[in-house]
């Protein structure tokens, strides 16, 4: 990417963030919905990708004339991946902007803190990327206020671990994970499943997110000769580990967590990413016809393919607006009731063909993850 195009993209993000407030100044007829994501801080890479999914869904609805006869306006807040900020942002969205629901956020710890507050106001939240099981586990069964239209991190760990043993036929597994909640829960899940189906965990190493040098740890792993290495953590660190592993000649089937889905990841890891496998909920080449159509529409207005981040942002927003339309009025409680059991027929762009927004009593949607393998610099579902 050249400097020019990066500036261009940043300017576009800036315009996207600024645009809603401009629109608001012009029209009082709009119906405001809330979006809360990290636009600064460590998770801003993900936040800035996910928000495009939100904006795309809103744009599509507005093209069709909006909802309940009103144009939709997306009001965005930056939570900086910080729970104190997140709690404040939620109050601001609900009280100042009177939004009937909020799409957000990425970091699970922030989602947990923020959704507790939103629930007090009877305003539902739909995950903007948070995958941690904790966020939906804290919901009261049967009365969830935090919804996630895809499986949680446990299911992701499950699907990935099964793929290691069944699809790739590897039984000696080394695990590397970061010390965040995300990395730790994934590592535990993978350990449980792999040992459960007869595999063996040869080593388990933790690291701090953002750590740079993995060479000594990987040198030690090389001596253990694992068949497969599972990496649970953020994309930047995963790419770093892959490159350093290739450098010292640690050869194994590398498998990573869902955060390592982006094209940026492939670019960062370079040729070291060949053969790397990752659980995914959506790819532009998805066999799901609804998802395929979404990817084609996306490509017409963007100069890059839709990825999991765009898809989950789109799904969360799309489901919420549709629930609002079905409820017939912009009221948090009505939207939540509709989300709980009125959306079981509504198709998702994520997951295999036929996946719908059938939220379970804890507010999650369950479908099997795809396992994508990187080949010639592209994630493919058919390898």
């Amino acid at each position: 990417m050249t400097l020019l195009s990066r500036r261009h993209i940043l300017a576009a993000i800036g315009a996207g963030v600024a645009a809603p407030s401009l629109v608001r100044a012009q029209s009082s007829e709009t119906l405001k919905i809330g979006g809360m994501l990290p636009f600064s801080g460590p998770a801003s890479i993900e936040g800035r990708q996910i928000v495009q999914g939100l904006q795309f869904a809103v744009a599509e609805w507005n093209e069709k004339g909006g909802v309940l006869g009103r144009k939709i306006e997306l009001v965005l807040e930056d939570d900086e991946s910080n729970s104190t900020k997140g709690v404040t942002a939620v109050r601001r969205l609900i009280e100042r902007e009177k939004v009937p629901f909020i799409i957000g956020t990425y970091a699970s710890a922030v989602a947990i803190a923020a959704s507790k507050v939103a629930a007090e106001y009877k305003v539902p939240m739909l995950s903007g990327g948070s995958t941690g099981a904790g966020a939906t586990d804290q919901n009261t069964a049967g009365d969830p206020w935090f919804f996630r239209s895809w499986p949680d991190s446990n299911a992701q760990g499950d699907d990935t671990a099964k793929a290691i043993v069944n699809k790739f036929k590897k039984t000696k597994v080394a695990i590397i994970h970061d010390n965040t909640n995300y990395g730790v829960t994934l590592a535990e899940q993978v350990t449980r499943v792999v040992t459960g189906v007869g595999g063996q965990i040869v080593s388990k190493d933790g690291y701090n997110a953002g750590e740079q040098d993995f060479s000594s740890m990987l040198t030690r792993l090389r001596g253990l000769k694992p068949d497969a290495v599972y990496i649970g953590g953020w994309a930047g660190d995963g790419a770093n580990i892959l490159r350093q592993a290739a450098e010292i000649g640690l050869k194994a089937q590398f498998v990573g967590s869902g955060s390592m889905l982006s094209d940026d990841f492939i670019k960062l890891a370079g040729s070291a990413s060949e053969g790397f496998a990752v659980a995914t909920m959506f790819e532009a080449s998805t066999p799901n016809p609804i998802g395929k159509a979404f990817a084609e529409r996306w490509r017409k207005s963007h100069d890059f393919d839709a990825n999991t981040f765009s898809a989950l942002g789109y799904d969360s927003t799309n489901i919420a607006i549709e629930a609002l339309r079905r409820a017939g009025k912009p009221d948090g409680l009505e939207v939540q009731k509709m989300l709980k059991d009125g959306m079981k027929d509504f198709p998702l762009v994520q997951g295999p063909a036929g996946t719908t927004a059938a939220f379970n009593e804890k507010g999650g949607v369950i479908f099997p993850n795809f396992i994508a393998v990187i080949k010639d610099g592209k994630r493919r579902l058919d390898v």
Partner: protein
Amino acid sequence: MKPYLIGLAVALVLAVAPFVLGGYETNVLMMMLFFVILAVGLDLVAGYCGQFSFATGAFYGLGAYTAAIMSRDLGSPIWLNLPAGAVVAGLFGLLLGIPALRLKGHFLAIVTIAFQTIVYLVISQWTSFTGGQVGVSLPNPAPLTAFGVTLVQLGSLRSYYWLTLAVAVICLLLAWRLAHSRLGSEWIAIRDDETLAAAVGIDTTRGKLTAFIASAALAGVAGVLTAHAMRGVTPDDFTIWISATVVAMMVLGGRGTFIGPILGAVFLVLMPEVLGRLAEYKMLIYGSLLVLAITLMPEGVIGRLRRRAAR
């Protein structure tokens, strides 16, 4: 008596504010009060006693985690956690005060930075005890009842706001009394000339250690309030950037002026909320503002005003 009257009037206005304002504004005011306590606490050790500390965030976190872990493991209520948080943070303040007896100025600053970092690493890594990166979540407390009648439903935002306001007023009164007591005069003497202070018979060891303890205990109290009001703790709320922010509040308002750090806290908490729409630029503006302020007005707003008045 005049400062007391003004303080009382401000406290009264703040007390009725939730009736007029919404939850978002109340929430922001509550965060402002947390930082007022932190900034005044730092002012005691750094402004009055001249012992520079970059570890406010660590003491803030120690108080918060004390409350969260006690609630989780012992089920203790907030009124028990408040003194406990103050004691734990105060003890660690004593611990940090010990190297301060030997080191000064920028050497001491580095030591406090190291202390801050160590505390952060421990609370973010010791997963079995502190919950690691995900922290500790607190359930809503049971209402305070007497003879089967609910007296106070702790748990609503307003109740926490009022509790925070009451505790903040008590903290400020205590800090004010301390700063204007004989001990406070000893602190100032140590700040202005330690050798001279020792020569005229002031126990500088006691002076420095008490300043560290008082400052840390106040931060601990703010931490307990935060943990309960936010219904949980996560390590990223207690980083060195929090310490630096509190230092900035103290310095912008004016070190050793008491009222200055309060105004600094008010300004720096409210500013990002006003700048909210400029998310892309707000931290850039914040950083540049800090550089400009320290260069052009090192004695802080209140320090500058007082100097002008004295002329």
